[in-house]
């Protein structure tokens, strides 16, 4: 086909950049802390207590990390289900973030749980506990991590097929590339079903805590709100990853994100509506201005979700780079606040129990686990074709 352009490109360049060294150093520090935690027990490096048994590893790395990894999920729905193939060129970077986001959420759980070797009992039928939302989350996250790897493999195979030194490996890559291509629709279907299940169950988990979760957050609508925040965060993640990549790597601006930005009002307004319903059914409006700092957090949630919707719908700013960036950043803050609210901020045990603030060790490991996403991203875009070939936007294929 004359004039055909590839959809994705490999970024040519040195992997060992200053960013790489800084992130690697922090990751090594975190590895040392984690080894110490395994050797001594987690009480020596964390501030978690019997009153606050879930710290930042679960509330930040799992609940927020898994939300940020929803870019691949949103793009999969958009491209393969809503037939918007014009965004197809963004899928791989979304899937790459999802793959690392979910793997790192899983790794955070392995660091967080005290007896990780017993995780084999998730697969022993007599031990499966179907009443537990955590059981479903654990299985779905493990399965989805596998699915994201499958979704990403074609990119790797495209690259490995070029290795002329090993013709059999090259042929193997080509063969399996086509096999995965054929069953893409199945992988995508699983890859959308699983996040829909566990993103809501991440919220269901906290319903069982009953009165220990503040009425401003405790409600039967937590699962639905968590599902919607997955969409909100997914959209924000696609936009931010694309914009930051363009800016920091001096790449051309990806115009398709204006199309993605059109989804912002749908997601955020849906969240606001359900949040209002949830506050009403929980009878929690009375707490909205009387709970001190917690009231502030909830009001901030509404603002950070409402302002992007307003900007995109009502102002010119919504059609500019700056506006889209502000909206996405606000949405990230909003989702983080809501999910932290459910997992940590709104969790008030009772008087006499110490409150929780992450320790030095937890802060470092939590940050490092999030940085591994960045670390993996900057390495893999230079090894396999992930970034969209923006030069090829004149591609004659119709959407």
């Amino acid at each position, binding site marked *: 086909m004359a004039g055909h352009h590839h959809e994705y490109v490999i970024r040519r360049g040195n992997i060992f950049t200053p960013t790489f060294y800084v992130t690697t150093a922090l990751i090594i520090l975190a590895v040392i802390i984690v080894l110490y935690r395994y050797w001594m027990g987690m009480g020596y490096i964390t501030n978690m207590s019997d009153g606050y048994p879930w710290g930042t590893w679960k509330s930040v790395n799992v609940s927020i990390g898994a939300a940020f990894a929803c870019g691949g999920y949103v793009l999969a729905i958009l491209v393969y289900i809503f037939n918007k193939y014009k965004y197809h060129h963004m899928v791989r970077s979304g899937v790459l973030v999802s793959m690392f986001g979910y793997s790192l959420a899983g790794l955070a759980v392995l660091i967080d749980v005290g007896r990780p070797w*017993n995780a084999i009992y998730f697969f022993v039928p007599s031990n499966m506990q179907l009443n537990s939302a955590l059981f479903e989350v654990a299985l779905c996250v493990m399965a989805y991590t596998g699915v994201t790897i499958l979704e990403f493999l074609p990119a790797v195979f495209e690259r490995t097929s070029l290795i002329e030194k090993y013709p059999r490996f090259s042929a193997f890559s080509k063969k399996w590339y086509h096999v995965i291509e054929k069953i893409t629709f199945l992988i995508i279907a699983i890859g959308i079903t699983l996040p829909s299940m566990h993103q809501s169950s991440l919220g269901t988990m906290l319903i069982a805590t009953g009165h220990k979760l503040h009425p401003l957050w405790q409600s039967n609508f937590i699962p639905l709100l968590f599902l919607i925040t997955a969409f909100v965060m997914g959209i924000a993640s696609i936009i931010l990853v694309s914009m930051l990549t363009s800016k920091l790597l001096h790449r051309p601006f990806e115009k398709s994100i204006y199309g993605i930005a059109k989804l912002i009002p749908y997601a955020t307004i849906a969240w606001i509506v359900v949040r209002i319903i949830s506050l009403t059914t929980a009878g929690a409006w009375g707490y909205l201005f009387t709970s001190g700092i917690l009231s502030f957090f909830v009001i901030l949630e509404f603002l950070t979700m409402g302002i992007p919707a307003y900007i995109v719908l009502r102002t010119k700013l919504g059609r500019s780079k700056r506006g889209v960036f502000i909206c996405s950043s606000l949405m990230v803050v909003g989702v983080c606040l809501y999910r932290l609210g459910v997992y940590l901020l709104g969790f008030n045990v009772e008087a006499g129990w110490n409150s929780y603030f992450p320790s030095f060790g937890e802060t470092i490991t939590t940050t490092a686990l999030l940085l591994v996403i960045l670390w993996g991203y900057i390495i893999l875009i230079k090894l396999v074709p992930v970034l969209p070939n923006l030069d090829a936007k004149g591609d004659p294929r119709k959407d």
Partner: protein
Amino acid sequence: MKTSRREFIKVGTAAVLGAGAVTTVGVKDAEAAAKREFSPEAVGMFYDSTKCIGCQACVISCYEINFVNRQSYINNVLAPEDQNFIVREDLIPKLAPEDQFNPDRPWLNVETNDYRFRNIIQKYVDPEDNVHFIKHQCMHCNHPECVSVCPVTALTKDPVDGVVEYNASYCIGCRYCQLACPFLIPKYEWKRAVPKIVKCDMCKSTLGANDIAGTGCTNVCPTGAVIYGKRTDLMKDAKNRIANNPGKYFADKVYGEYDNGGTDVIYLSAVDFKYLGFDERIQDFSYAEVSENLHHTIYTLGLAPIGLFLTLAVAGYINGKRNAHDTFEGVEFEDEYVPDTKTATKSKEVKNKEVKAKAEKDKGGE
């Protein structure tokens, strides 16, 4: 072909909305949760706060049986030749330096349940300077949150005697039980490399929990403030005490009859239970019911996920066919370039110059 594209958008929307709808439907059913019946054989404990003198003999007895000498109590069940310390090591506490006998501080400083004390006595002095004691240990709820949330069945409620037991060999150490327990009972060995959850099991693992053996705490109570027996008998006893002593007990209430869906351990007290460490926000139902009902409604027979999957697979398949193209044509590379420095630009191909021009155009445009 535009109409069919619209149809797929509809299908996609329906699938996503369907998932949301199922979630919302679940909310209604959760309210109409059916209460679980107590097992007629359920055993429990009955603590009468007005009889307790606060001697803490129960605390020491429990500490001795379930912590200090737990090893010998568990192994006494087996014949000496069957005793295998390595196999049972998981169940045996290792004494950390701070747990060992300290001649300078030979007393116990117990403020709350922790991984050593499954059972504690707390004191409350009311405004009239009357002293009230309260014993805290696992309530053995009828519908326990901890059992409901444990993902690997490490916590179980015995269907016959109703004891909520913990099995360390299944536990993954996720501490969800701690998060969910409304009475803040399960404790975690934070400073152990191989930590366990610790909670009262009515001495089932050490003494065997039967009418002859009793429990560590009930066996030593000098005033009979805490007694062990079948829950039905204990409940009758409690009601009799209330009937025979009008006005003595707070609101003529047996705590645990209905609280948190009913508990096997029941209490009588002269003061409001909220002063004795029982959160007044604890409801007459267990939140395990709410979350289980919601969870089960969403996943009734797995219909919602399977339906969603099939819809998505069909939509994805058809969309994939419509947009089919062979993308496998090798790999293209994108050169690094710095837009502002002419000399640093390494691009050799015309294509890259175009990219650069485009980038600058974008920059100028905004």
